[in-house]
C-alpha cells in the first residue's frame, strides 16, 4: 500500500464544479450519446423523407390537402419522434443514478443535493439545445429545398416561420427537462416514462371523451397542446397563443421540478 495522501487544495463544493461533474457524467455514458444522436438523425431523416413523399405525390387528390399545406410542419415531422428520444433520455439521466446506486456516491459528494438537480437540468438543457437547434434548422432548409421543386417551399422571413422553427427546438428541449423533472420526482424509470408519455399523449385522448364544450375549455391547456403551439405556423382558433402556450408548458415543468427539489431535500437517498 503506497498511497501518498498529501494535503489537498481547497475542496469546496461549488455550483460551477457540480456543473462540470454533471457534464462529465453526461458525456461518459454511451446511452446519452446514442439517444442524442438518434434525435438528430430522426429530425434530419424525416426532413428528407416526408417532403420527398409529398413532392412525389403532388398534387394530392383531396383539395383540402392543398389548402392546408404546411411546409414548415412537413419539414419538421422528425421532432415528434425526437421529443420521445430526448424525453426518455431526460428520465434516464435521473433514474439511472437511482437504479445503479450511483445516487449515493453523488449525494455523498454533494450532500446539499440541490446543486446536483440544477446542474443536471442545466447541462442537459444546454447540451440538447445546442444539438437540437442546428438539427431543426438543417431539417427546415433541407425540407424546403426538396419542396422547392414543386414551388411548395416557404422562407425563413415569412411571418411566424422563424418562430415555429426555433419553437420546435425549444419544445423538444423542454420535453427533455420535463422528463428529467419526472425522473427526479418518481426515481423510477418505468414510472417516469409512462407518466411523461401519459401526460403528453394520453391526456388529449381522455379529454376527447368529455362533452365538446368542456373539450374546448380544457384541451388547449393540456401539456402537449400548450407546449406545441409554439411549433406551429398556424394554430387552430381554440389553441393558446404560441408563446403563452409555451409559457404554460414551462410552468408545468417548473411545478414538477419544484416538487422534485422539495422531495430531494426531504427524502432518504
Amino acid at each position, binding site marked *: *500500500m*503506497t*498511497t*501518498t*495522501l*498529501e*494535503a*489537498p*487544495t*481547497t*475542496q*469546496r*463544493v*461549488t455550483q460551477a*464544479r*457540480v456543473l*462540470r*461533474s*454533471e457534464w*462529465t*457524467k453526461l458525456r*461518459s*455514458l*454511451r*446511452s446519452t450519446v446514442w439517444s442524442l444522436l438518434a434525435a438528430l438523425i430522426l429530425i434530419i431523416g424525416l426532413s428528407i423523407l416526408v417532403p420527398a413523399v409529398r413532392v412525389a405525390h403532388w398534387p394530392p387528390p383531396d383539395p383540402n390537402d392543398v389548402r392546408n399545406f404546411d411546409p414548415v410542419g412537413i419539414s419538421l415531422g422528425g421532432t415528434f419522434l425526437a421529443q420521445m428520444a430526448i424525453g426518455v433520455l431526460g428520465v434516464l439521466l435521473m433514474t*439511472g*443514478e437511482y437504479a*445503479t*446506486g*450511483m*445516487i*449515493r*456516491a*453523488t*449525494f*455523498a*459528494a*454533494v*450532500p*446539499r443535493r440541490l446543486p446536483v438537480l440544477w446542474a443536471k437540468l442545466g447541462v442537459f438543457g444546454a447540451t440538447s439545445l445546442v444539438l437540437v437547434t442546428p438539427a431543426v434548422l438543417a431539417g427546415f432548409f433541407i425540407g424546403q429545398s426538396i419542396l422547392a421543386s414543386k414551388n411548395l417551399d416557404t422562407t425563413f422571413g415569412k411571418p411566424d416561420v422563424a418562430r415555429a422553427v426555433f419553437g420546435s427546438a425549444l419544445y423538444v428541449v423542454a420535453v427533455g427537462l420535463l422528463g428529467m423533472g419526472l425522473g427526479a420526482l418518481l426515481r423510477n424509470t418505468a414510472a417516469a416514462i409512462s407518466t411523461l408519455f401519459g401526460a403528453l399523449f394520453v391526456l388529449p385522448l381522455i379529454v376527447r371523451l368529455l362533452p365538446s364544450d368542456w373539450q374546448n375549455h380544457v384541451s388547449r391547456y393540456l401539456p402537449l397542446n400548450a407546449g406545441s403551439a409554439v411549433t406551429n405556423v398556424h394554430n387552430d382558433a381554440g389553441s393558446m397563443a404560441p408563446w403563452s402556450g409555451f409559457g404554460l408548458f414551462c410552468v408545468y415543468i417548473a411545478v414538477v421540478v419544484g416538487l422534485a427539489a422539495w422531495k430531494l431535500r*426531504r427524502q*432518504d*437517498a
Partner: protein
Amino acid sequence: MIEARGLTKKYGEKVAVDDLSFSVQPGVVTGFLGPNGAGKSTTMRMILGLDAPTSGTVTVNGKPYRDHVAPLHEVGALLEARSIHSGRSAFNHLLSLAQTSGIPRSRVDEVIDAVGLRDVAKRRAGGFSLGMGQRLGIATALLGDPRTVILDEPVNGLDPEGIRWIRSMLKGLAGEGRTVFVSSHLMSEMALTAEHLIVVGKGKLIADTSMDAFIAGASRNVVRVRSVDNSALSALLTGPDVTVRTVDADALEVSGLTTDQIGMTAGRAGITLLELAAQQASLEEAFMDMTHDSVEFRPTTSTGAQR
C-alpha cells in the same frame, strides 16, 4: 471523530437503529460489528446524511456531514453494494466525483494506481467483478484525502491478497491520525484489523469497548479439564461463581477457576489429569454470546447461516 447521540431510525413500525450513542476516535481502526440486519449500513448512511435520522444526531468532526463545505475531504466512504453507474468507466466515475470538489485529475490517477485498477480504468464498471467493484469503491473513498474513512463491509468479494491489502491500508490510514470506521459481520476479520469495537444487534448498542476488553469480558473464558475421575474432581471444584459442566462425554469445562487452582486441587486429591487447558474465547464466541438475542434472521437449519 464521529459522534452519534441518541441516533434512531424507524421505517414505519420497524426500528432499524435504536437510540445509538457512540463516538469513533481518530488514530485507531474502529470496527462496527453486528449480524446482518443489525442496522450498521443504516447508521453509516445517516453519518453521511443520505438517510435522515428519525431522532438523535450524528456529527463528523463537530458538524453534521451536510454542513461541511468540503465534504469529500471530510469523509471518504465505501457504501454497501455498489454505488457506481454500470455504464461509466472507472476513470470517469472517479473524475465526475472528483470534479464536484475541484479535486484534480492527477489525484484520480493516483487513487486508481493505489487500488490497482490501472489496467481496467477505461472499462465500463458494469463488467467489473465484485472485487474490482470494491476496489473502485475504496478508490472513491480515498479521492478527497479524507480525515475520516467509513467503509461498509470492505472485504466483501476480495481475494486473500486484497483482504491483506485492505488490512494494511486501514492500519496505515489510522496510523496517519485519521478516523477509520469499518463495518463487518465477519468477526475474524475484525479481530485482525480493529483495535476498538462498536457492537450492535437489532439496532441497539451492545458494546463500545477495546478489542482486548471485549474478548476478555466474554463469558466463555473457561478451562477444559480431562482426568481419570471427572466426577470426583468436579465435586472438589467449588466456590462462588464456579460452574462445571461436562462436555464431549469425558471432559469438563470449568469457569471461575484458573488452571493453577484446578491443577493444585487435583494434585492434593491425587487425581491424575489428562488435559488442562485455558480456553480463551475467540472474538466470534464473544460476539455470539453478546448478540445471542439480537440476531434478526436466525436460520432454521444449521446450514446457510452465512450470506
